């Protein structure tokens, strides 16, 4: 009984600290679950923690291992660059590339046209492929940003308040579809949300970030 547990790498294993002005983040999290939600009030450092996981916030110290791969290890000086992490980051304000069409945004990582259309279908944005981001609604933009991340075939999907612009029924429908997709592609998932409903629907485990400290909820 103990043998398999010791060889199985933890899905997510991190112990990081970061000081940015008045924010002092001390996050320790180890879990075998493949879908985790992090909840907490705004300003607690949730988005910053996702930036650390994505590798675009480079000032964090400590250790990050995802699916058995070490991304950050202060002791050995390991730092895996964001473009080598295979991580899909969907930031809170979608950050679509304003000069590119929806199709070009979705295909930014190099996906084939057929895959782009398939994902667009899944996210109900197939009719918008030739539009520019400025001509989309908030909800449409969020779905395109999600599709863009999915089409990069990440090992870990980072969702930062991903469906805040959608109303509840649409949101839950989308959450279910993403969950299915993640399971099928054996993609790990970290969701940041202040909405308990989203967290419950998408994640197997909930953690709470309060004043920079992460606790199992």
């Amino acid at each position: 009984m103990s043998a398999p547990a010791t060889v199985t790498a933890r899905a997510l294993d991190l112990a990081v600290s970061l000081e940015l002005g008045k924010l002092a983040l001390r996050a320790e999290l180890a879990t075998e679950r493949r879908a985790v939600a992090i909840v907490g009030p705004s300003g607690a450092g949730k988005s910053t923690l996702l930036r650390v996981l994505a590798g675009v916030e480079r000032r964090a110290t400590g250790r990050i291992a995802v699916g058995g791969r070490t991304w950050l290890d202060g002791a050995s000086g390991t730092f895996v660059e964001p473009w080598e992490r295979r991580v899909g980051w969907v930031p809170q304000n979608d950050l679509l590339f304003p000069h590119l069409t929806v199709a070009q945004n979705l295909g930014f990582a190099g996906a084939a046209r057929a895959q782009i259309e398939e994902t667009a279908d899944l996210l109900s944005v197939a009719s918008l492929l030739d539009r520019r981001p400025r001509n989309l609604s908030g909800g449409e933009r969020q779905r395109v940003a999600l599709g863009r991340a999915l089409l990069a075939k990440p090992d870990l999907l980072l969702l930062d308040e991903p469906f805040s612009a959608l109303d509840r029924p649409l949101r839950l429908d989308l959450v279910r579809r993403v969950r299915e997709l993640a399971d099928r592609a054996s993609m790990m998932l970290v969701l940041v949300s202040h909405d308990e409903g989203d967290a419950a629907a998408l994640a197997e485990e909930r953690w709470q970030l309060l004043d920079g400290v992460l606790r199992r909820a």
Partner: protein
Amino acid sequence: MRRTLLPGWILLAALAGAPSAAGQQGAPAAPAAGEPLLVLAAASLGDVLPAVAELWRAQGGGPVELSFAASSRLAPLALEGRADLLITADQEWMDWVVERAGARREDVVDLLGNRLVVTVPADAPSALRSLADLASLPRVALAGESVPAGRYAQSALEAAGVWESVAPRVVRGESVRSALEWVARGEADAGIVYRTDLALQPDVRLAFVVPDDVTPRVAYPAAVLASAPRAAEAAALLAFLQSDAAAAVFAAAGFEPPRPATATPVQAPTQSPLPSNRSALALSLIVALAATALGLVPALLLGRLLARRDFPGKTIVTTLILMPLVLPPVVTGFLLLALLGSRGLFGPALAVLGIAVPFTLLAPILAALVVGLPLYVLSVRGAFEAVDPRLEEVAWTLGVRPRPTFFRIALPLALPGIAAGATLAFARALGEFGATVVLAGNLEGRTRTIPLAVYALLEAPGGTRAAWALAGASVLLSLVALAGFELLSRGQRRRLEEGSR
């Protein structure tokens, strides 16, 4: 020998001199109450006249204010009604004033004479004997063709029958002082300047005095102006300037008494043709386009660096880049000459590569580039700063490395701002004057851009009409460039507003 000449000079001056002043010769008027006398004097008198004015005051004369400039600058000022006394460096500009009733013909006296000399760098071998020898040198510096010293030098070469062979080697400075500076720096192998200039520049020496038989009459005519507010005192000052006491000071500085107009029948200097507007316009466009193109990559690199990176010494780097924005362009030109000239810091290295900067097409281009770069870098930095850095971060997480990300995200988003910066640098390049005139000389078809041509035209009597055409072209080009800048800046703002919601 000069001593023996002096009494004759005084006598001559007294005979030809201002009749109204004759009775007071050498005796200063009673100290004036109120404003000082305003004297407009040729630039080449700038080192000697203050000493004479000092003497005048010591002998009880009233306060004197001296304003020095090229004769071409002084003449129009003389008609403004503020000045009392005018001393030009040639007859032509004095005639110009007389024709416009600025002074009465009979009031004009020949105050001083000067000598043309050939000067060489202090360390040059002394092989020059005659004007014909100049044809064997790579570069001969003269003052501009519209400055008296430049015209005198040309007519001496013409009289000696060597103008045709020397002309291809001639580089022209904006004034006699810049010609002298080029000789001192070894940029020119010889120069023709006034004898009185030599004392000012330790890095040059006298090769020979231009012989009498080919020397045009170099005279400094002086006149109390018709509109002089303090005419009586001005006449007294003019009389004092012709006195023995003043003559001693002038002589010590290398001036001599004027030769009588009839004594040397040397022909009047040939009026050189007015500079061609078409070649100046074409050259300006080439220079501005080249400077803009050459500046693109440095502006992109520096603009991006300053927008996105913090590094030790960033403030110093920024300050150095912005420096040409606030430095007087003439100083920038002088520093460039000190760096890139044949005897400059990098001159020998450039020479090994076969690159010569001064007096070549490279000179106006580099001057325009350096002077325009601050505006270029600032615009590009602003364009990159306005692009949300998180857009590039998102691209990285999608597996795209920073360099391709830069070309796919930051560069296209900043493009209108970069184009605006290029337009601004282009406009600045079109207007560049100060650094160019020092580094590039004023050579038609090679380095004479629109601003230099306009300047040359304004120096030449009768050039105003042609100057208007160029000024018009200049205004038009600047308007187009600035309108382009405004449109592109607006495009940049719109482009970025689309990005944020």
